C-alpha cells in the first residue's frame, strides 16, 4: 500500500529534479525545484516525519524558493541569452561520464550497506513518532547547543547577506 504512494512521489521528485537541471530558463528550473520540494515533503510524511515535512514546505518551498524567484526576477533573466547555452561546453561529456561514475559508486555502496546491516525490518514506531512535540523535546534537551549555534549562524548569514548585497565588488 505504501509502495503505491511512494513510487509516484519518488518518480515525481526525480522528474522535477531532472527538470531543474535540463530546462533552459531559470524560472522553469525554479518552478521544477518547488515541485521537487513538495514531492519530498510527501516522502517525509510517508516516513512519519510530519514536522520535517511541514518545515520542508515552509522553509524550502516557501522562503528559499521565494528568494530564488526574487533574485531571478531582479536580475531579469530571460533564459534565452548566451548564459544558458550549456550544451556547447566541450567538457560536458567528460563531466557527465564522471557523474555517472559517481552514481554507480554510490549505488554500489548502498547495496553494500544494505547487505551488511539489518535495516529492513524496522520496529513499529510509537504513535507520536515525528510529531512537533517529540522533535521539539529532543531539540531543546539533547541538542540545545547546536540549536543555539544554528540561530547564531542564521544571524551571521543575515548580516553577511546585507553587507554583500550593499557593497560593490571592484
Amino acid at each position, binding site marked *: 500500500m505504501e*509502495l503505491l504512494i*511512494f513510487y509516484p512521489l519518488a518518480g515525481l*521528485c*526525480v522528474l522535477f*529534479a531532472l527538470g*531543474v*537541471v535540463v530546462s533552459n530558463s531559470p524560472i522553469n*528550473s525554479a518552478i521544477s*525545484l518547488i515541485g*521537487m*520540494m513538495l514531492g*519530498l515533503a510527501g*516522502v*517525509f510524511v510517508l*516516513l*512519519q*516525519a510530519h514536522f*520535517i515535512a511541514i*518545515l520542508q514546505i515552509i*522553509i524550502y518551498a516557501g522562503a*528559499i524558493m521565494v*528568494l*530564488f524567484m526574487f*533574485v531571478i526576477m*531582479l*536580475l531579469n*533573466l530571460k533564459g534565452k541569452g*548566451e*548564459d544558458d547555452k*550549456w550544451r556547447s561546453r566541450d567538457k*560536458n561529456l567528460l*563531466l*557527465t561520464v*564522471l*557523474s555517472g561514475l*559517481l*552514481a554507480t559508486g554510490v549505488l554500489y555502496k*548502498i*547495496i553494500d550497506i*544494505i547487505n551488511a546491516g539489518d*535495516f*529492513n525490518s*524496522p520496529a513499529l*514506531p510509537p504513535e507520536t513518532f*515525528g510529531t512537533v512535540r*517529540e*522533535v521539539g523535546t529532543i*531539540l531543546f534537551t539533547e*541538542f540545545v547547543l547546536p540549536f543555539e549555534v*544554528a540561530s547564531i*549562524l*542564521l544571524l551571521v*548569514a543575515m548580516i*553577511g*547577506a546585507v553587507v*554583500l*548585497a550593499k*557593497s*560593490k*565588488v571592484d
Partner: protein
Amino acid sequence: MVPLTHYLFLSATLFVIGVAGVLVRRNVIVVFMSIEIMLNAVNISLIAFDRYMNLHDGQVFSFMVMCVAAAEVSVGLAIIISLFRNKPTTNLDEFNIMKS
C-alpha cells in the same frame, strides 16, 4: 512498508542529479538550485535511517541541514547579486575577477 533501500536509491538518484547539474550547467542560479537538490537528497537519507532505527536524531540533523541551506542561500544570492552588479552575466565561466 517501503524498504529502506528504496529511500536510499531515491536519495542517491537525486544527489547524482544535483552533482550533474553543478558539473554541467553554467548558469550560476541553476548551479545553486542543484546544490539545493543535493542538500534535500541528503535529508531523505537522514530521515529514512532515522525512521528505520526509531530515533529522532536524524530529524534534528536534517533540521540543521535546513538551517545551513537557508543561510547558504541568503549569502550565495547576495554574492550573485553583487557579482551581477559588477558584470551583468550569470555565466559561471565569465566570473574570473580573482584570477588576474
